[in-house]
């Protein structure tokens, strides 16, 4: 079948494909361009190359089991997706999350937000020829991901934020690693400001390019840094505060022209605000009681002894479960049953613990929210990440829909590049922060 652009094309113009496999397309994304020389007469974006049926899959998974799929939406800031999903479920279940878990969630969201912005700007700068910026920003991102990795065990798809709290407490020595990450990122941001802010090549390719008006940005449903670059003050953290954001002190940087340069500046300034938030919230999290992780009974031994009567003393857990010891549970996960996985120590050693474990994981049991539908959103890396969940009272969602921020942003791409030059596609597309995972779902 002929595409729209093929039907509308002038006989003397040239049709060019950018993507789906193109180094500047951040994954798989196809732009068909009708060119007159280097001028773009018409453009058509084609998406769906990374469609993997996220919503359909979720309808066939239990509420607990579908959490890892949400990691893979915006895979640069997976914890914010986890958070969006978990908080939507908590709104439905009416669950209260412990204070410490809320603070850890803020810490993790802000670390993710910084790494999201870093990735976006790194790729955008590299595509405009500033390879140094790319390397510097990737270096800073490693320090941020160190904090995430030490705590959750993985760098990207962490599934760390769970319904009812977080999977584990922060790792020992987290304060030091947060401090290092903040310090290193600040240094990189300073360097990048120096490298790009007055760089004539960068300015020529971004200033006045890809500009969008406030009205259009709102009409396209833009949110996040892209909307704020046009001067509209809308941030979910301020408009509908969740977690403890209303108790923290941070500013929302705004742009003015809505062009690529403003999108770059807003992201740069937002990272500084996020670093501020990280420091504030780190100061609010008290040190946890130290645990002796060496003394205790091995799980296999505990199971054997538990056949007769409850074994005395602590049960040692696998190092993979570090941070989710029973002692930590009241601080990090809600006590409302059955929302969180029961502590492993109980599962290993007591009949009641084993029963509650089965009641959590068995088909048809587990998390069963009341009937109804709910919408909840959090501020993600590139805008409002919203979940719309319809529950029919069973353990699986009847319908789960993700409001993907970049779906709305990318839908304006055709308008932004029409009439411009071919080379303008690269910075414009780069500053939008298209993430295939959430765009195509």
């Amino acid at each position, binding site marked *: *079948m002929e595409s*729209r652009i093929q039907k509308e094309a002038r006989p003397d113009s040239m049709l060019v494909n950018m993507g789906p496999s193109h180094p500047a397309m951040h994954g798989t994304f196809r732009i068909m361009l009708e060119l007159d020389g280097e001028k773009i007469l018409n453009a058509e974006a084609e*998406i*769906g190359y990374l*469609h993997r*049926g996220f*919503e*359909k*899959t979720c*309808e*066939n998974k239990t509420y607990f089991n579908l959490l890892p799929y949400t990691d893979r939406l915006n895979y640069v800031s997976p914890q914010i997706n986890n958070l969006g999903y978990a908080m939507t479920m908590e*709104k*439905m279940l009416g669950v209260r999350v412990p204070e410490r878990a809320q603070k850890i969630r803020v810490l993790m969201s802000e670390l993710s937000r910084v790494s999201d912005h870093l990735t976006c700007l790194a790729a955008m700068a590299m595509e405009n020829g500033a390879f140094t910026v790319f390397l510097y920003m990737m270096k800073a991102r490693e320090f941020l991901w160190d904090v995430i990795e030490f705590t959750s065990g993985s760098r990207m798809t962490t599934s760390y934020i769970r319904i009812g709290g977080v999977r584990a407490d922060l790792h020992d020595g987290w304060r030091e690693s947060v401090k290092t990450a903040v310090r290193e990122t600040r240094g990189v941001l300073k360097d990048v400001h120096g490298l790009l802010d007055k760089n004539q090549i960068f300015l020529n390719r971004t200033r006045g390019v890809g500009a969008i008006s406030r009205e*259009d940005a*709102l*009409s*396209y*449903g833009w949110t996040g840094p892209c909307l704020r670059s046009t001067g*509209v003050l*809308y941030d979910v953290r301020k*408009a*509908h505060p969740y977690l403890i954001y209303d108790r923290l002190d941070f500013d929302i940087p705004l742009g003015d022209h809505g062009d690529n340069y403003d999108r770059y500046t807003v992201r740069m300034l937002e990272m500084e605000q996020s670093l501020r938030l990280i420091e504030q919230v780190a100061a609010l999290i008290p040190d946890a009681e130290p645990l002796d992780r060496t003394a205790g009974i091995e799980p296999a031994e505990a199971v054997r002894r538990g056949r007769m009567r409850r074994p005395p003393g602590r049960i040692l857990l696998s190092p993979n479960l570090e941070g989710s010891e029973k002692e930590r549970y009241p601080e990090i996960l809600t006590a409302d049953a059955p929302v969180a996985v029961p502590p492993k120590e109980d599962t290993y050693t007591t009949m009641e613990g084993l029963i509650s474990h089965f009641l959590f994981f068995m088909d048809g049991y587990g998390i069963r929210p009341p009937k*109804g*539908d*709910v*919408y909840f959103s959090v501020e993600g890396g590139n805008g*409002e990440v*919203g979940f*719309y969940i*319809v529950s029919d009272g069973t353990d699986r969602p*009847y*319908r789960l*829909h993700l*409001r993907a921020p970049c*779906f*709305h942003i990318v*839908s*304006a791409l055709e*308008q932004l590049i029409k009439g411009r030059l071919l080379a303008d596609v690269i910075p414009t597309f780069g500053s939008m922060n298209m993430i295939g995972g959430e765009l*195509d*779902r």
Partner: protein
Amino acid sequence: MGPETLIEEIRTRLGDAVEGVSDSFGDQVLIVRPVSLRGLMASLRGAPFDYAVLLDLTCVDFTAGEGRFEIVYHLYSLSRDVRLRIKASVRAENPVVDSLVGLWKNADWLEREVFDMFGIAFLGHPDLRRILMYDGFEGHPLRKSYPWRKEQPRLPLKD
């Protein structure tokens, strides 16, 4: 104006279009007649309601039980900081609903997605075709009648 008074205001001004209101886990929901959907949305977009942003548009397939689709809109008013959910029922056979493309620009892609996933036609949409799935895909994957993990035939290579 708080959310409740806002709903009351909408009911007084646009009462003919409104079938009912409800509250779902604290979210304000407006159930509207599909025939008057476009007119109602146009009024909500302008003053005094000022729902300038179409946050989201999706659909729920209740075919299994109730023989209908439900189109779900989420609007957002920046000046008041309130969200509003709007639902309209569509029959399951040859479902058709009015397009909102003239009102919001993102309705273009959002409606294409609903068309792609649920097979709902949007009257007045300028370019209604699949967006996430490819040309030649059979069926609409998010309908409840479409089996999970169903396999599709391979398409011949294009020239």
